[in-house]
């Protein structure tokens, strides 16, 4: 089922996925089929610029990392043509035969600083924001709630070893806190704060949107990485959406403590899900309070 109603959440989502996939190197057309019985399937028409396996890997990566979808490689069909991109676009329809004037054939090598044309195709990934806002146009209403932020972290070290950690996360005016006891090992200093943060995030999600798919978050593991110039905590969280397991990662500098870094890395890993859910809730006119 390809989207026919851009107003629907699923239609919009499918369109975003298709726009994202169509932007990948060698991909000329992408269609996403969401069927509750048959499952998800992604059909790709590609030029011969890259081997099929590379196109398939790129599609997997874009879906997994870019949009948080977990699909199996056997759910992706890549059909490769020896025709050029332009010929394929002409064949596939008038819309595709008239690309944006800023786009350039991917065969064009980079030509130097005076080249007036972008050598990377303009793919329309304009909603693929990394700037921290929701992509609103100037003059439009301010966005709803954004990602959660760490409001407060209290660590109380016990004389006999171990510690109590209290984590408070906030979403605008609403905040939720939890307190956890930890044994005091290095593993605990990573896992307990991350798990505590995840409990709070789950609580925010439970009080958020009710019309979308249920999102479950599970702490998987954390690791401290001591590099000569960077002391980093990396956290892996598993999101479960409609039975699909999606690994999410986050990283943060441990300069201000491993516990704080563990929480920030957890927030970074889960930002996409939490922000999307709470923002949708706001847009639907349902108070998060």
């Amino acid at each position, binding site marked *: 089922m390809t989207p026919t109603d851009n107003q629907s959440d699923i239609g919009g989502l499918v369109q975003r996925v298709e726009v994202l996939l169509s932007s990948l190197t060698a991909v000329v057309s992408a269609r996403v089929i969401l069927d509750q019985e048959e499952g998800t399937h992604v059909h790709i028409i590609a030029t011969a610029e890259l081997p099929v396996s590379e196109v398939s890997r790129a599609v997997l990566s874009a879906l997994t990392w870019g949009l948080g979808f977990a699909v199996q490689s056997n759910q992706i069909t890549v059909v490769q043509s020896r025709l050029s991109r332009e010929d394929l676009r002409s064949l596939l329809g008038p819309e595709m035969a008239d690309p944006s004037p800023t786009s350039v054939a991917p065969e064009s090598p980079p030509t130097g600083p005076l080249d007036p044309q972008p050598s990377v195709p303009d793919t329309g990934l*304009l909603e693929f924001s990394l700037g921290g806002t929701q992509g609103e146009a100037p003059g439009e209403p301010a966005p709803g709630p954004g990602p959660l932020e760490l409001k407060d972290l209290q660590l109380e070290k016990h004389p006999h070893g171990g510690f109590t950690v209290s984590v408070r996360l906030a979403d605008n005016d609403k905040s939720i806190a939890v307190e956890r006891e930890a044994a005091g090992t290095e593993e605990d200093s990573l896992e307990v704060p991350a798990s505590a943060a995840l409990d709070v995030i789950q609580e925010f999600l439970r009080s958020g949107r009710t019309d979308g798919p249920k999102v479950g978050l599970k702490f998987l593991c954390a690791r401290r990485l001591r590099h000569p110039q960077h*002391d980093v905590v990396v956290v892996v969280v598993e999101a479960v959406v409609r039975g699909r397991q999606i690994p999410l990662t986050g990283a943060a500098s441990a300069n201000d403590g491993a516990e704080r870094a563990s929480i920030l890395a957890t927030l970074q890993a889960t930002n996409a899900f939490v922000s999307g859910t709470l923002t949708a809730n706001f847009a639907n006119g349902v108070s998060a309070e």
Partner: protein
Amino acid sequence: MPSPDDSTIESRETSTSAGGRPSPVGKAPVPVETIRLVGHRVREVQPGVVQVEAQITCEGRDFNGAASGPVTAPDRLRVPALATLRALDACMQIFYLGVSEPALVLDNVVEVSVGDFPVAVVMITASEKVNATSLVAACPLVGMSDLAIILATLQATTRTVSHWLWGDRSPGAEEQDRP
């Protein structure tokens, strides 16, 4: 190994338009004061050498960064990160109005196992005036994922770069506890 003085690395502004431009998908125009990924391309320019180009957009202008390096790990991981930093550098050359010379230095991109998961960690040092800040981000590795590393590099740097360029007007400029 790709390095900042690698002659195969380039960055440039590729197009301009005033005040943002319409989205090809018919949605809202590009908002000002954000840095966004437009696209990327990966090519094997000669046997054993891969080139990655990343294109970002900022205030209606597009900026390209390109880098090339070996197709074999571990240096392969650095190529997309370096291309992204070069695009950001081109953007800063246009928009940075301060007197110092801000810099983003790629320290490393490493693949580590966190539990059973292969993860790429991008490590960058951002410096402006006398301040140096450690910036990091991570992404799951599914095969060789240039897009994932480009996104992780942008995730690590966009807040800092936005703060350099727009100060308190930047999104999340004062929200250090909001990853």
